[in-house]
């Protein structure tokens, strides 16, 4: 016990020492929100920022809060920006609305802006392999047969976007010095062996602060969970004189308290089987936020302990309250509890469709050919919505671009040319690259737009089938 204490002290001492040199900061937040169908949305977000010069060489030889493992990987392999998500389950837009953080597809999704050098291809390969080792995931399977380079769908989120002020003339276009690489493994199952190395990147690990609640047994017993890390360069000021490297780590889960108790009530203890014992000492900001539902007659609730601080946020027309708990000030052990005045939760029979959502599904039967259909719904009554549809299809589905049809099934009668602003298509090459389809669509108000395309299923060599061939292939 004493030994642990000693080590903790020395770690704190080290951290303080480097803080003075490297100028780092660390924030942590937990956001909770009750969803319309009784589920509970929890979102952990940990942000580490480091002042740096992108060209600086010995950047990560001394490190404090910013994890050395990530820093060295992105520096060694020339990644300007890195986004990696591990997701299991499907985000249910009909019932849950939009997620707070960027939503990702099932499995593993990785995209990075890589500095354009001669060794960009080996760098990307090395990056996927390094991340594969770091997160105990099969990221090394993101090879050239899966990697794509979308043209329209992704924008760098780094400093240049920060100053996307139209008054500012962009100094240099980010696409000048870096290229996008994108790969996804929809088959990958995400589990505790991915979470453990992810937690190790945090300065307080799972010992203090909101990260205490990251209990793998509970997090993976949920309807949806998504774990992500995003590394990007950001600006500290408007003119971008000071640059920072930002690492955002998030864990998003959708719990189902109704499944256990038939009521919506929850507490940290019931959700995570843990309480927050102490706050993280190195965090400059350590908070728990609860987005409070509006109180109506049949929707009365109470929250314990009551918040000493609260904020307001706007959703469309109405304003809602947010309870804010600063972990530096709360009484420990801290257990938050929310109780509804209801005997049993009545499931809402009317789904609350968000204004804009999409469905993708396969058509056809047999092992020879099939089709892919996407319905994109725009429920906005009077606004045209521009969207970019991006799909990267593995080579073993041979797409026929001439069968691509875009039509509006209800709403106004619109010509195909008015719907599609721009299309980028890269046909697949057998055993070496995927098909990439990107379309810039303008969805008319209050309409369902259907995109469909036909494909042939390629006959594979016996070695090219995945293990458990009868399960089929996942197409992300």
């Amino acid at each position, binding site marked *: 016990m004493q030994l642990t204490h000693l080590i903790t002290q020395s770690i704190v001492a080290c951290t303080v020492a480097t803080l003075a040199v490297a100028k780092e900061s660390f924030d942590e937040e937990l956001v909770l929100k009750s969803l319309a169908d009784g589920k509970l949305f929890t979102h952990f977000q940990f942000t580490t920022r480091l002042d740096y010069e992108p060209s600086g060489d010995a950047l990560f030889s001394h490190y404090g809060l910013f994890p050395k493992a990530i820093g060295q990987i992105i520096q060694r392999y020339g990644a300007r920006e890195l986004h990696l998500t591990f997701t299991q389950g499907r985000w249910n837009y009909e019932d849950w609305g939009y997620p707070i953080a960027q939503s990702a597809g099932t499995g593993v999704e990785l995209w990075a802006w890589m500095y354009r050098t001669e060794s960009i291809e080996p760098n990307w390969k090395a990056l996927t392999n390094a991340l594969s080792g770091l997160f105990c995931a099969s990221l090394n399977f993101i090879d050239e047969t899966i990697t794509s380079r979308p043209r329209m769908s992704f924008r760098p989120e780094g400093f240049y976007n920060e100053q996307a002020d139209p008054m500012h003339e962009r100094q240099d276009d980010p696409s000048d010095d870096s290229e996008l690489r994108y790969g996804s493994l929809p088959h990958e199952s995400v589990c505790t062996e991915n979470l453990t190395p992810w937690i190790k990147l945090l300065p307080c690990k799972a010992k203090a602060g909101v990260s205490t609640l990251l209990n793998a047994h509970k997090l993976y017993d949920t309807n949806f969970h998504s774990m992500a890390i995003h590394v990007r360069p950001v600006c500290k000021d408007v003119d971008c004189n000071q640059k920072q490297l930002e690492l955002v780590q998030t864990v998003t889960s959708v719990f189902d308290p109704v499944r256990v108790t038939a009521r919506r009530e929850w507490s940290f203890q019931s959700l995570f089987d843990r309480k927050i014992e102490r706050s993280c000492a190195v965090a400059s900001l350590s908070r728990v936020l609860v987005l409070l539902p509006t109180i109506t007659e049949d929707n009365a609730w109470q929250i314990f302990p009551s918040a000493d601080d609260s904020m307001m946020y706007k959703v469309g027309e109405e304003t809602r309250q947010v309870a804010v708990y600063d972990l530096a000030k709360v009484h420990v052990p801290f257990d938050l509890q929310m109780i509804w005045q209801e005997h049993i939760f009545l499931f809402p029979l009317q789904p609350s469709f968000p204004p804009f959502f999409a469905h993708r599904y396969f058509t056809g039967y047999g092992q*020879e050919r099939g089709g892919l259909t996407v319905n994109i719904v725009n429920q906005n009554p009077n606004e045209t919505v521009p969207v970019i549809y991006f799909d990267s299809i593995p080579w073993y589905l041979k797409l026929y671009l001439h069968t691509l049809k875009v039509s509006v099934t209800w709403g106004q009668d619109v010509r195909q040319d008015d719907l599609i602003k721009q299309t980028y298509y890269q046909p697949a090459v057998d055993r070496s690259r995927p098909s990439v389809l990107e379309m810039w669509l303008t969805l008319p108000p209050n309409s369902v737009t259907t995109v469909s395309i036909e494909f042939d299923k390629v006959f594979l060599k016996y070695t090219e089938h995945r293990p458990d061939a009868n399960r089929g292939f996942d197409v992300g």
Partner: protein
Amino acid sequence: MSPLLYIPAFAIRLALFHIPAIAETLASRVEIVTPITSYKRLTEGLYLFESHVPPYDGGVFHQSPIFLALFQLLNFLPSITVPILYALTDITIAYLLTEITTKKQAIYGVKPKLEVEKGAKGIEPWVVGALYLFNPLSILSCVSKSTLIFTNASIVLAVYYALQGEKSLGMFWVAMASYLSFYPAMLVAPIILIILNWGANGSTILKKDIVLHCVLLYATWLAALLFLSYQLVGSWDFMGATYGVIIFLSDLTPNVGLFWYFFIEMFDQFRPFFLVVFQLHAFIFAAPLSIKLSEHPIFVTFMLCGIMGIFKSYPSIGDAALYLAFLPIHDELLKYMRYGFLTANLFLYASTLGPIFWHLWIYAGSGNANFFYAITLVYNIGQILLLVDVMYAMLRRSFDVEHPESLGKEVVQK
């Protein structure tokens, strides 16, 4: 006789083209269309080409650039033009076969004959045309819009012009056929033999010079076609996407041939070796046949077309339709054939069970790849048996013609 023959053939084809359920089903059957002759893939290639996406930079389109030019042109015309083009091509093939038969009968008329053949009339030339036009295989292949029909037409045109003594045109059409589907390159030898034996009547030029001239013509035409293609698409990518796929078999879609199953199951380290073996095997018959049967070059063409139809990497029933059309030209051999009943049954058996086993494997899921492969083996055994039988008939008849005294004598092997 001819119009009476062509009008119903033309009408059947157009009628089938206008029943979408039939035309679309045929266009997607693996027995009829292959990755290198599929009209759907051609449409895709054309679409990519017109959308300024390089059509050969992808895994879908494996057909010659000249099709892009031809069908781009046809796109400006009403949509009925394409079925008419296909039907007319088939009619042309039948007409040329009739002409070839007439010419062949004139040539063989002065050759030594068997006693029983004297006074007997050979097959009516129009029957040869009719046998092609009303062969279900050629009708199905035509209605599927398989681009193989253009290769078949080129081969028939080459034989026709070679018989006319038109060296340049004859070699052009062989070059065209080899340009379209690579394997007909082996037909250079029999076509030159036709020109040499019967085409160059009364000429004083040395035989060696004629051969050299023909080979040069072939090389020039082929180079010209390839260069024209390069000009059309602006890169040499098409070489890999067309001939590369035919040679290296990168698309393993099943067909009626022998390659796909082997190369799906093959251990990777043996792949290059067996590719060489399989491809060499298809070509290896060209030289011995041309040497042994140099007096019967049309027959050599028939044999080589048959071998192509069995041993090429992406065969379809359209290949069988072509060599089966050449068979009745040599009607004098039919009386020597021994396995007619067996061969006919094997063909019928395969054509009934082929689609059934395909359905069991791909759609019902109650069968597997072995079912379909087994039935393609039966089909190929039928074809091989037919070729062996015809070859035997040819050799036996030649022997009998040369040794009329041995007829009716017993042969004892010691």
